[in-house]
């Protein structure tokens, strides 16, 4: 038998812990304060000390995993590092600045990157419009198939010229308009979000949604064309419609982007690719909500106040140019810069 093993000198892992415990405790205190009351709670010198202590703790964790068999210690360090890591790597950008960055850089850049898909969504939408219009012109009774009764608001193939005209040039008092605009916004934004989410099903439903949207519009166009009000309808539709349809197309493109990531994962795994695409698509959809909001404001307030066809067209082209510049110039430039 060998001699009894000696353990009168301290264990290395014990000495290791004694040496560093004070730092861990200090870090724990700082982290706890940030968790409770936010990072502003810390003084400047404490703030400077935080990453230093964090790196110390992380290296302690690596060492402890290698040399210490004290499970209590490793568990503690694991949790401490996890907490400190969440505090140290929390995004620090103030919300308003981040929002500014979003609308001046990431959003237009993302849309520029997805321009082909936006175009695709627009083409599908226009195909829907053409189909809806041609089919309704061919047989006016199809109007009911394409347009939901609630949405049509009493308008239909049997409406006379004057009835249709009354809706297009109706100047309701301003009071009800606000409510109408916000209702439209909530409604459209919801449809937009839906287009984004259904992208998860391989993107096909997103395009389908575009097409169906187009059918409704086409049917409307047809009943107005039959009463010689085609131009007036466009003047009524386009001032807010350019923005709104663009937003719809953006949501559709976002949905297709997700679907494409799932169908054609390329070099990455499907899951990784979905995540990559999902983030971008979500940001595009979030930006599109802002567009819906602008469209609703235009629709609610501007349309009913201005009755002249030429002014309506002028505003429509102005918004179109503005969006083209925003995405085509700002977005293109931002897309070339490295992303934050």
């Amino acid at each position, binding site marked *: 038998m060998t*001699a009894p093993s000696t353990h009168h000198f301290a264990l290395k892992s014990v000495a290791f812990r004694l040496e560093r415990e004070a730092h861990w405790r200090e870090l724990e205190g700082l982290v706890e304060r940030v968790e409770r009351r936010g990072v502003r709670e810390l003084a400047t010198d404490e703030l400077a000390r935080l990453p230093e202590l964090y790196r110390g703790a*992380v290296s302690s964790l690596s060492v402890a995993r*290698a040399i210490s068999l004290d499970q209590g210690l490793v568990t503690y360090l694991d*949790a401490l590092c996890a907490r400190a*890591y969440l505090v140290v790597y*929390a995004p620090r950008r103030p919300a308003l600045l981040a929002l500014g960055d979003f609308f001046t850089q990431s959003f237009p850049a993302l849309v520029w990157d997805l321009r082909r898909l936006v175009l695709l969504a627009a083409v599908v939408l226009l195909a829907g419009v053409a189909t809806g219009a041609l089919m309704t012109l061919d047989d006016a009774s199809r109007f009911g198939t394409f347009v939901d009764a609630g949405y049509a608001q009493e308008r239909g193939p049997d409406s006379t010229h004057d009835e249709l005209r009354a809706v297009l040039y109706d100047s309701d008092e301003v009071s009800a308009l606000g*409510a109408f605009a916000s209702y439209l916004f909530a409604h459209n934004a919801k449809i937009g979000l839906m287009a984004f989410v259904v992208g998860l099903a391989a993107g096909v439903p997103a395009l389908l949604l575009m097409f169906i949207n187009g059918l409704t519009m086409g049917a409307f166009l047809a009943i107005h064309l039959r009463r010689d009000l085609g131009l007036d309808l466009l003047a009524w539709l386009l001032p807010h419609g350019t923005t709104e349809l663009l937003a719809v197309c953006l949501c559709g493109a976002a949905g297709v982007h997700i679907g494409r990531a799932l169908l054609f994962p390329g070099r990455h795994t499907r899951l990784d690719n979905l*995540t990559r695409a999902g983030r971008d698509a*979500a940001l595009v959809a979030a930006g599109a909500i802002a567009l819906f909001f602008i469209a609703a404001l235009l629709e609610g307030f501007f349309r009913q106040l201005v009755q002249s066809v030429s002014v309506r067209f002028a505003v429509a082209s102005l918004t179109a140019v503005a969006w083209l510049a925003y995405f085509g110039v700002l977005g293109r430039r931002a897309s070339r810069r490295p992303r934050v």
Partner: protein
Amino acid sequence: MSAAHAPLSATVTLLTPEQVPIRFELASFGTRAGAIAMDLMFMAAVLVAYVLGVSGLSDLGGSTARDLGRPFVLLGVFAIFNFYFIVGELRGQGRTPGKRIMGIRVVARDGGPLTAGLVFARNLTRDFELYLPLQVLLAGDAIAPLRSPWLRLACFAWLGFVCLFPLFNRRRARLGDLLAGTLVVNQPVATLLPDLAATASADGEPPPSAQYAFTQAQLDVYGIHELQVLEQVLRRPPEQRDDALLRSIADKVRKKIAWPKGDPLPDPEAFLSDFYTAQRHRLEHELLMGRRRAKKRE
């Protein structure tokens, strides 16, 4: 024994930017459902307060104010429904009030910071994952296409799939989590327990003297796994650590390491504690020499 002490919850390892893996416990489905229930209650409270506040204010000031009030109510309701979770997670670093109470939080799967993009991506899908199922459950009859029983069945199947999605994947991710690349984990709690093998405690108490000495051969029987099981037993609070249990463990150890047979031990806890210290000493020494003995020798 090992099965009883294995961690009950699934864990996930994230790689920090320093390339150190850190382990997190995934939040359970029940905890998450609880957090959502709480958040929905808070949201309802905010909604009611907002709507009552705005309509109260607009009622005070004539008909124009009342007309102005309506859009504010509609916009506010939209904003609260769609941005409650987003704002909550952005402000609370991945913790909405409900999550905070339940002790869970959102983290990025790749170990990076939880940026606004991720928060948006995981929450924009809620319309579809949470509100739609709720609507169908609460007011399924009001939705016209659902009057057909087949459609209704299909709808329930689909919604059930979406709602229970976290139960069917390793990372317990819901669809929004998959899309954003996020995970929901338990907020780590760190308590530094005293080192059982410390020869001198931090508050200057006299070192507990070792009553029992072990030979190297005796210490070469058990491995790391048994050492850590013993650690768990010794760390139990006194009320869960009755003498009979300690005695039976001590007897097992004595038999295994061929400790001289004799009378029952006067103090099994002291014996086990000394054995733990000596064993850890031995195994850590071996570890430094590059020999890792994971389990006992059979």
